[in-house]
């Protein structure tokens, strides 16, 4: 049997997405299941990411698995100049599954080609972070009861934000979607994605204004961070830095069923006065990550 890696969100089909949603709901009801008993999982974080690592390692622990690995490459043989190839070759001899995060783009795909055991990508530089997308989808299905016929509004850095790109790819597998992109011109959604949606006959609309009227019809409001480093001209950043900030008063025209998502960590793009609004979902979204990762691990190893 071909091993089932998860490197890029498009490695999964619509059926895989639905299966993960089903399993995540199951793990949410019953998070502690001994499916990984007797198994060892490598958690290789070549760059630190405490949030993602804890989510994965808790998921592994709740499944009864053991963890080996490192939380940043300064404490590993990588600093001694060992190639990724050799590290993965060695580790894949020892373990049943590899979870890895690495700053170099394409490293996870390469590791999956070297490794004898399945690899789950926990982020490879600015490229892919598929488990984030799956937890976003689980948050959507939990709060909206469906993955189709959604009005999805994405706000902020739509140019470099890999989470929004992957979410578009995944949600476009389901019917009746409508996308709305709100971003400064410098950080607008890349043409390859608007073109992709056009080819699939999925409506998408672009705005530069972030106003209560624009978002009134949204089912999902997906906020991202506008980072200063992304601007070639600092004056451009100064002009837009306070435009793409969500304040509680902006939500008064929105539907009761609207939920606000954010991949976290947040800086200032969502005012703290939004946190107590029942439409704010980003902290629960993070918790959903653990159930989703339990689901992904079980699916990857064919344990369910």
């Amino acid at each position, binding site marked *: 049997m071909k091993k089932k890696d998860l490197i*890029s969100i498009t490695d999964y089909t619509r059926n895989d997405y639905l299966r993960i949603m089903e399993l995540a709901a199951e793990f949410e009801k019953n998070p502690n299941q001994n499916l990984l008993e007797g198994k060892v999982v490598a958690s290789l974080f070549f760059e630190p990411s405490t949030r993602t690592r804890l989510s994965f390692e808790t998921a592994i622990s709740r499944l009864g698995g053991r963890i080996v690995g490192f939380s940043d490459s300064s404490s590993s043989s990588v600093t001694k100049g060992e*190639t*990724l*190839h050799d590290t993965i070759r060695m580790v894949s001899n020892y373990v049943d599954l590899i979870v890895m995060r690495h*700053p*170099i*783009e*394409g*490293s996870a*795909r*390469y590791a999956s080609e070297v490794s004898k055991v399945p690899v789950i990508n926990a982020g*490879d*530089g*600015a*490229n*892919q972070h598929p488990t984030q997308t799956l937890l976003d989808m689980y948050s959507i299905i939990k709060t909206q009861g469906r993955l189709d016929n959604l009005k999805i509004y994405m706000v902020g850095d739509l140019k470099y934000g890999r989470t929004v790109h992957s979410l578009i790819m995944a949600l476009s597998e389901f019917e009746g979607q409508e996308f709305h992109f709100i971003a400064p011109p410098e950080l607008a959604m890349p043409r*390859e994605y608007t073109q992709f949606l056009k080819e699939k006959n999925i409506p998408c609309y672009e705005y530069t204004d972030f106003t209560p009227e624009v978002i009134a019809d949204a089912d999902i409001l997906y906020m991202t961070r506008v980072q200063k480093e992304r601007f070639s001209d600092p004056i451009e950043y100064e002009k837009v830095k306070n435009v793409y900030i969500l304040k509680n008063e902006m939500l008064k025209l929105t539907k009761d069923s609207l939920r606000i998502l954010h991949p976290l960590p947040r800086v200032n793009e969502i005012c703290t006065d939004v946190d107590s609004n029942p439409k704010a979902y980003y902290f629960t979204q993070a918790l959903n990550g653990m159930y989703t990762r339990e689901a992904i691990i079980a699916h990857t190893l064919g344990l369910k």
Partner: protein
Amino acid sequence: MAKNLLKVSAIKDGTVIDHIPSDKLFQVISILGLDRIKNQITFGANLESSKLGSKAIIKVSNKFFEDDEINKISLIAPNAKLNIIKDYEVIDKKVVEIPKTVYGIVKCFNPKCITNNENIPTKFVVASQEPLELKCHYCEKITGRDEMVIL
């Protein structure tokens, strides 16, 4: 035509690769590995061409390329034409086609790509032929014709 042919001597059996841009001659030789084979090879560069302005031509004796092999040069010599010669006669003509997958040959333009950080061969899927867009199998970034560097 007769005039150009005279400039690079005729071959009995083999392949003539014509309409190579002059400045790509040595890259074509290297991609096809012609610098590593024992066959008799003659070539000319800076020949007149109505199409390219200036072209190069390569003649390889007793060598007949597989399509996969010759299509590798399509990225740098998209107008190249092949004449297959048997006993001084052209018995077949071929044009090069851009392959679906490109192995090696091209460097990924993304400096943060694993292929530029570890010693592994590049691999691209041809996302579009015109304009040429190569999608890296590893980092998933697109390398266009303007960013294309031959390895």
